[in-house]
């Protein structure tokens, strides 16, 4: 039987329905294997769709057989496909690489639940990406959030707990804000389907509730996405979660929120109100810029390597937001491309850190001095991904920075200021990445690793795979770039 038309649904339900079954797999190896197989399958589904979509396909799916505004519609276009690739890719990669790391951080009897939560997080994030229904997005947002809280709380350090609590509180506030916004839009339009909303919002006479709704949705999602002043939950949550969870979530969790934010704003509001573009810009651009600067500056002085990278994530989110806030084809392309490239770079970095953590318990930067001597391959991969983060040419990160600056140059008289800020933050990124590299390579060792040698082979291999992908997509970025520009086209097609 032909499953192709069911792919959007399968993308979500395969991991989701496997989650309960994973709990039953008591021998932990089996749970891992099952989860990995499912994650790989999801990735295959996502890849399959992405390839078809880059050839111009567009998937639509009516859940339950009920047509769009009445039932829930799934819709996978270029933008969602890009996100799906990131999400499933991150989940599969981290699982493939992470068995040893997870074994060392999660007790065996809790592991089946851990893997189940993992798959739920995957399903939730994928569900957000494929859904074309405002409320359905909320439901899946909550699935993914709850599962991520669980994953993060699995960290062996007790500090994970206050961190995850903060995340829980702020995440819930964010989701609830989103819900309020959706409610207001629903109140004024009577529909929940995004496409239907787009068609009906314009006809609404009383614009104030829509305006407030846009505000609530934007703030709520900005909270979830850790956009600059609302990012306070992120650093600790990423720092103290199990390493593999950091790999997974840092690569995709906030991105999905950004995806919804951009999608909602462009599909529903931009297409109806010509002032919305400027509101959107004037709200998000300063936040993006501030985030880029402040977070980079903070990262430069961070002592803990995971916290440092978490702060850098905040800055990178700033880039993505900045690109979107231009409301131009180029800006959105840059944004979408950066979504992908940052996931690649951050994923690789956190993988390398997980590898370091195999032999170093304390991940404070000064304790890691000289690690390159005992773990040269890991350190090299870390350096490569770090350079990608900075945007050194030849790496994936460069592509998106290029696009971003290119897009910024169109931004009227203050373009030079934007470029200046982007460049300044790139230099700050260089500074903190260089700090890591230099510590690993040039400083005399302070702490002897708990055991000599490299990280487990599979972890090392995957880390290198990602590192090479950073270079590969830096030199041959056609595939993600096609998707990104198709995504931007899709979004701009909805803007006035």
């Amino acid at each position, binding site marked *: 039987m032909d499953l192709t038309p069911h792919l959007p649904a399968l993308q979500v339900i395969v991991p989701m329905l496997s989650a309960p079954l994973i709990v039953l797999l008591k021998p932990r190896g089996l749970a891992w294997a099952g989860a990995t197989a499912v994650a790989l399958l999801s990735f295959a589904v996502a890849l399959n769709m992405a390839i078809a979509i880059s050839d111009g396909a567009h998937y639509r799916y009516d859940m339950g057989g009920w047509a769009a505004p009445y039932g829930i519609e799934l819709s996978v276009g270029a933008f969602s496909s890009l996100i799906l690739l990131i999400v499933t890719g991150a989940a599969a990669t981290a699982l493939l690489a992470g068995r040893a790391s997870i074994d060392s951080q999660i007790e065996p009897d809790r592991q089946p639940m851990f893997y189940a939560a993992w798959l739920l997080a995957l399903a939730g994030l994928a569900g957000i990406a494929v859904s074309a229904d405002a*409320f359905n997005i909320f439901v899946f947002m909550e699935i993914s*959030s709850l599962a991520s809280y669980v994953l993060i*709380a699995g960290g062996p350090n007790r500090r994970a*707990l*206050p961190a995850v*609590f903060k995340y*829980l*509180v702020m995440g819930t506030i964010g989701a*609830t804000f989103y819900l309020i916004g959706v409610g207001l839009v*629903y109140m004024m339009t009577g529909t929940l389907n995004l496409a239907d909303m787009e068609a009906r919002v314009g006809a609404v006479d009383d614009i104030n509730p829509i305006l407030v709704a846009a505000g609530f949705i934007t703030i709520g999602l900005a909270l979830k996405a850790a956009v600059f002043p609302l990012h306070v939950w992120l650093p600790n949550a990423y720092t103290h979660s199990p390493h593999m969870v950091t790999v997974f979530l840092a690569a995709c969790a906030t991105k999905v929120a950004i995806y919804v934010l951009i999608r909602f704003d462009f599909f529903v509001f931009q297409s109806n109100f010509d002032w919305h573009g400027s509101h959107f810009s004037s709200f998000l651009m300063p936040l993006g810029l501030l985030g880029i600067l402040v977070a980079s500056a903070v990262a430069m002085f961070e002592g803990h390597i995971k916290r440092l990278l978490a702060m850098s994530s905040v800055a990178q989110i700033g880039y993505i937001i900045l690109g979107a806030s231009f409301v131009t084809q180029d800006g959105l392309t840059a944004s979408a491309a950066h979504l992908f490239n940052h996931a690649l770079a951050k994923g690789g970095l956190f993988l390398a850190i997980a590898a370091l953590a195999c032999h170093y318990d304390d991940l404070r930067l000064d304790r890691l001095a000289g690690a390159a001597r005992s773990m040269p391959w890991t350190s090299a991969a870390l350096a490569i991904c770090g350079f990608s983060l900075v945007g050194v040419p030849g790496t994936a990160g460069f592509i998106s920075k290029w696009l971003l600056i290119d897009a910024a140059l169109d931004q009227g008289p203050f373009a030079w200021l934007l470029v200046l800020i982007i460049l300044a933050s790139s230099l700050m990124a260089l500074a903190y990445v260089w700090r890591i590299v230099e510590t690993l390579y040039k400083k005399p060792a302070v702490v002897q690793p708990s055991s000599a040698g490299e990280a487990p082979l599979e972890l090392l291999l995957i880390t290198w795979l990602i590192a090479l992908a950073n270079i590969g997509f830096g030199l041959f970025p056609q595939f993600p770039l096609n998707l990104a520009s198709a995504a931007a086209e899709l979004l701009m097609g909805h803007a006035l």
Partner: protein
Amino acid sequence: MNLLELLGYFNYWVFAIVLMVGLYTVIAKINLVKKLIGLSIFQSAVFLMYITMDKVEGGTAPIILKGMEGNVFSNPLPQVLILTAIVVGVSTLALGLAIVVRIYESYGTIEEDEILDAD
């Protein structure tokens, strides 16, 4: 605008007030359990908003029993949404409480500032 019409907005005002009370509790209180309580108040306010919009004057609950086919019915859709949202709220709350319990076990306190001091 006469009084009755004004009172038609009363639900929304209460929504706004309760929402803010909840939010205030979440961000101003430093006791973790209190924060969670605030969170559930906060969410409840949203439920109120949704349910408020489902009401139709002279309508009745959307259960179309025999012989009621001609009646006016309230909007069933927000109710469905809120059913889901309530479940989500409880789930979040349970998870939050589990975390609070663990925090208390490892820190001996559930006051945020004391936890910060402890680390």
